[in-house]
């Protein structure tokens, strides 16, 4: 069937992987935060800040990897802000998260306007070029789809592997998981809950920012307003969909991206009968659906969203 045969082309899957990459970074970032027990609703704003910070670094003359680093630092800074308010102070993670999103977004826009006051169309930079991996790139279909991507995409997949390894095979990961399940147990074993949670949020936020930077430095080549367009919220759904496990979340991100890539095709097939907005709505509706399907069964980290007060009576 004409509609489905696109699914067997390498170009399609290459696009899907490319679309998935920012989602993978951000989802891993949110996953780390939530595993440690903190819901980070600053994700949308942090991705915006990361997108701008990375792009602007390159625009100002830095090289691409420096841009990625700056983006990560920007993310970590906002993560520190979020963590300071929610961990030692125990403020509502919902309110602080929305506040951080609003702050990060508005600071980004302000800085953008300040740095580039007269532009009408966003200036471009030279983004990451695709880096085909020798030998692997010649595998039929998979070669073009997986091994002819940009370096940041490879980094995304590598990040998933690192996150999975750390979480499940190192003492640090054990502590992070425990802090999201029972912080008192962690404190009783002589580990500082505050330090663990703050560290996790900062690292997670750095990853989210890199996810945002992917959009300006690898997928597109400039920064524009409303760039993130709800991807942050979708990543929150992806974390739930992946049951807080890196591998499953990765699959979720790829499936979602594949669907996103596919809806362009659906638009073509429908030939204008269905307004294009309907197709654009689908990612968001799909996320809601995914949340509903998974919600009942989800084994979430037990201490998620519950602030920890040391020595609470």
């Amino acid at each position, binding site marked *: 069937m004409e509609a489905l045969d696109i699914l067997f082309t390498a170009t399609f899957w290459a696009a899907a992987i490319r679309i998935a990459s920012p989602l993978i970074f951000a989802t891993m970032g949110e996953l780390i935060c939530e595993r440690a027990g903190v819901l980070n*609703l600053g994700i949308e704003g942090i991705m915006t800040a990361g997108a701008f910070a990375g792009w602007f670094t390159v625009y100002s003359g830095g090289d691409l990897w420096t841009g990625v680093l700056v983006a990560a630092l920007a993310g970590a800074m906002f993560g520190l*802000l979020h963590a300071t*308010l929610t961990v*030692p*102070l*125990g*403020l*509502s993670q*919902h*309110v*602080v998260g*929305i*506040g*951080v999103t*609003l*702050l990060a*977004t*508005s*600071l980004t*826009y*302000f800085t953008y*306007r*300040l740095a580039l*006051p007269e532009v009408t169309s966003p200036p471009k930079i030279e983004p990451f070029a695709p880096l085909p991996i020798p030998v692997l790139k010649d595998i039929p279909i998979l070669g073009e789809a997986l091994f002819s991507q940009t370096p940041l995409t490879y980094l995304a997949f590598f990040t998933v592997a690192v996150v999975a390894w750390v979480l499940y095979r190192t003492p640090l990961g054990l502590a992070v998981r425990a802090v999201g399940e029972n912080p008192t147990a962690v404190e009783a074993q002589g580990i500082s809950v*505050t330090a663990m949670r703050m560290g996790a949020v900062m690292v997670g936020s750095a990853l989210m920012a890199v996810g945002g930077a992917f959009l300006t430095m690898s997928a597109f080549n400039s920064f524009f307003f409303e760039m993130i*367009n*709800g991807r942050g*919220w*979708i990543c*929150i*759904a992806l974390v739930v969909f992946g049951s807080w496990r890196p591998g499953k979340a990765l699959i979720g991100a790829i499936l979602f991206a594949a669907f996103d890539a596919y809806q362009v095709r659906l638009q073509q097939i429908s030939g204008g009968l269905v*307004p294009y*907005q*309907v197709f*654009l*709505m689908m990612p*968001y*509706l799909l*996320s*809601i659906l995914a*949340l*509903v399907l998974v*919600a*009942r069964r989800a084994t979430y980290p037990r201490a998620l969203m519950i602030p920890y*007060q*040391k*020595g609470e009576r």
Partner: protein
Amino acid sequence: MRLEPKPAPSLAATLLYPAGAILATLVLAALLVLAAGADPLSVLALVAKGAAGSQFALLETLTRATPLIFTGLAVAVAFRARLWNIGAEAQLYAGAIITVVLGTGVLPLPSWLLIPVIMIVAVIAGGLLLLGPAILKTRFGVDEVVTTLLLNFVVVLFVSMLLEGVLKDPMGLGWPQSQKVIADAQLPRIVQGKRLHYGFVLALAAAVGVWIVMKRTALGFEMRAVGHNPEAARFAGIQVNRVLMKTALMSGGLAALAGFSEVAGLKGNLTLDLSPGYGYSGIVVAMLAMLNPLGVVLAAIFVAGIFVGADAMSRSAGVPSYIANVMVATALLTMVVAILLSRYRLRWR
């Protein structure tokens, strides 16, 4: 570091900390102004002048405050019951859509009947839109923050679809905008020739109404109880789910009235840029007001003043008007810290 609850805080303390929050916000704004190469004090003066320095400015501020009062109330009502309604933006547009659908001539009713009818249907539409995520929360345990957020994007796309399709203004030269609502559906201006309209009065009435419900009715009590401790509320015999549903209808309805008010009172038609984020700003307004309905009016005027003032200042001083957004976001964060500090003492080891 530990948090120790203070016994009942004094009135002075309750006011001192929010004042501190505003001060912190101003300090950050000053730093940003310096970064922009301008003088903080003169910029601040321009903002203040732009917000309230003339009759024109003041009226403009009140006009801008009108939708913020509605969305602020919507968020305050929901947050009181711990229903995290981040979808006021979508609910606002739902109200706007209804206003345009019913108000462009399809109902041949006189003004005194048409306006209430539109308002009621708008309220129902907004309420139903929030009811969905509320049901997903109570039935399936799905966090309403994410669902309401995602719906914002869906509804905005829906509006775009309608404006290019069914609701398209045939006389609009191809721009995506709706027809203008008929005269009978319009809210009159309070002052002839100025932009302030009776939506403002409705907003004030809504604030009083919400205050009465929260303070004086059994439903308001139940909403507060559910917001503080759903388990204890359930034990006491309160129908928690039913209360949440009613809260959702009320909250969504209030946000929808923001959309109604903007269309019927100010703009006259529906466009894609009807709301520059009123739904999100409503969250800040609600938190600044500490979820108090009457406080929402003051907070809305304050926030509106910042935006209006910053717009005016930006035109003359060249500092990007986004500084207003930064100030508002900072005010939100400093305010929650201030509330915490007024109730708890920070004890170092």
